[in-house]
């Protein structure tokens, strides 16, 4: 089966005043139709850069795509001309962001912003565009769509704004939705509603979703597959059930054990010593080796490639955790 999206060996660098930032190094993963893929990582792991690259919204320069392909529906997104990409972005690939207040224009009413997007991609007049916007708001379970359409972004709550963003993103029947930390700015009770909404949308309109987050709970709640990123590399890529039961990469394993559980009381948390690397000067070899308990000599020199060690279970590690010793 052909994947909806396949990212192959993506390598991106940023040229800054302080030097070159080695942001992404051979990032690979894929996504099938109707799947929700979680990309999880800490600060500077490259998860947002990856998302922006797929939608081609990285500023080039300073960004430089050194290598790699992003195959979306059989074609390499990186090869599209600017005008061609403008037709795909927002129509086939949509994106929502962490802080919907900054993504929405504060001086226009929701009505204008939503219908602008619809009119840009479809041949409809304003009246019909507004009608379509109303239907979309109903779909994302906004109780009184007409009233919301007539408001400015600041008049809505954070959860409402994120619903408006999702409605706008889905208004052109996109095939892929990229959600960059969509619930990070929200309270848990609101987050719960937004996550349920994303799942419902997937079921109703069969959309594929890439969900970028630093919160493992969010991934475990709604994702089918998960790519764990660290320091600009994908270290583990598999389905969510496999990852939580038997993480092979020492980083995934350590991360899972570092999360304080809400359903039991424990005395001591597992820690990963040190902190995330500075990508101006990434460690040689495996970027995780300075913090890794399993590190070998080889890890310091040679970056491990992402390999399929069991069916649909990819890891980038020379000395993975053995079965039985893991269990996040």
């Amino acid at each position, binding site marked *: 089966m052909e994947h909806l999206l396949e990212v192959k060996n993506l390598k991106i660098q940023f040229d800054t005043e302080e030097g070159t930032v080695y942001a992404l190094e051979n990032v690979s993963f894929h996504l099938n139709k109707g799947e929700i893929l979680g990309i999880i990582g800490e600060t500077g792991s490259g998860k947002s850069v990856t998302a922006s690259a797929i939608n081609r919204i990285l500023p080039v320069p300073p960004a430089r795509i050194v290598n790699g392909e992003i195959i979306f529906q059989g074609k390499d997104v990186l090869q599209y001309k600017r005008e061609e990409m403008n037709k795909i972005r927002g129509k086939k690939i949509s994106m929502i962001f962490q802080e919907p207040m900054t993504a929405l224009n504060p001086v226009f009413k929701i009505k204008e912003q939503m219908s602008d997007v619809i009119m840009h991609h479809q041949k409809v007049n304003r009246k019909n565009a507004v009608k379509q916007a109303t239907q979309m708001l109903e779909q994302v379970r906004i109780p009184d769509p007409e009233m919301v359409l007539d408001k400015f972004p600041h008049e809505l709550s954070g959860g409402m704004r994120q619903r408006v963003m999702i409605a706008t993103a889905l208004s052109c029947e996109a095939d892929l939705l990229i959600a960059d930390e969509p619930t990070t700015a929200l309270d848990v009770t609101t987050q719960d509603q937004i996550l349920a909404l994303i799942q419902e949308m997937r079921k109703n309109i069969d959309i594929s979703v890439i969900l970028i987050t630093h919160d493992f709970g969010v991934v475990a709640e709604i994702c089918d597959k998960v790519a764990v990123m660290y320091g600009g590399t994908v270290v583990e890529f598999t389905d969510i059930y496999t990852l939580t039961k038997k993480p092979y990469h020492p980083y995934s394993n350590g991360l899972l054990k*570092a999360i304080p559980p809400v359903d039991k009381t424990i005395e001591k948390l597992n820690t990963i010593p040190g902190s995330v690397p500075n990508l101006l000067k990434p460690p040689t070899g495996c970027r995780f080796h300075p913090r890794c308990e399993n590190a070998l000599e080889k890890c310091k020199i040679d970056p491990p490639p992402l390999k399929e060690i069991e069916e649909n279970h990819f890891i980038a590690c020379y000395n993975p955790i053995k079965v039985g010793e893991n269990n996040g």
Partner: protein
Amino acid sequence: MKTQDLRKEFQVRVGFLQKERKITAVDNVNLDIQQSETVGLVGESGCGKTTLGRILAGLLPATSGKFFYRGNEITEIKKKKNKQIRREIQMVFQDPFSSLNPRMTVSDILSRPLKVFKIGKNAKERTKIVLETLESVGMKTEHMSRYPHEFSGGQRQRIAVARSLIVNPAFIILDEPTSALDVSVQSQILNLMVDIKTNFQLTMLLITHDLSVARFQCDRIAVMYMGRIVVISDKEALFNSPAHPYTKILLKSIPRTDPEQRRKKAISTGEVPSLLNPPSGCYFAPRCPLKMDICETKAPELKRVNEHQTCACFAVEKEK
């Protein structure tokens, strides 16, 4: 530590005409904290948990009400005689990027409170105290002469913790100490705080929106909703047999890290109402599955449900 009907109101200007309106951020809070106990203050954004913390730390004056520290009333924060008490109560803030002065070295940052409270006879003795405190939070001698920007978020939070410890406090208020940190670093800081609590025999108030952090660290937990405390409970009771409907919803809303425990649909409904226009009666009533007629007219008071929990809810009271 004990508060009695502590209340904080803010004047805000809203709308085109900038009409002055009053919001009650902290609404008659009564909370006791016993010696060497860690109490968690949890709630969603805007519930008033940080405001309450700042009043207790002496950074904000209360509008009305009293609070007592070891039996002394210290609501009036300007009085000189309270200086000793101020030393004993310290605060650690959420964002270690803005809570440390970027122009001061670590050594300056840590010596400043020593000078203010006249601890240590001379510079040499103060340096010794600085060094010992740095070590107790897992930092090294060579870090003394560096500036905050040279450190990672986790290290900065260690410095902020050291600054609060250096004056030998008895009570520390931690305002979201780990929410600006990555998970792998958060666990280091959480473990550190458990250690220093034992080593320095501290009493703590931990303000957090993250119930799993509270579960890891606290003995008792108070849940706030729109400025009111709705539950005070022993930790295990709160998680194992939550009484208040808000606590139940809050607990169920937290995504579990185990995909086997997935829920099929959203637990909660509605949103937190605005403090500018609060509902009459119980503030949680518009979202509450157990709502009764009385809830819309009268605000419930905190009442003891069992030996582990007090709870402000008419439905819970009735069931009992």
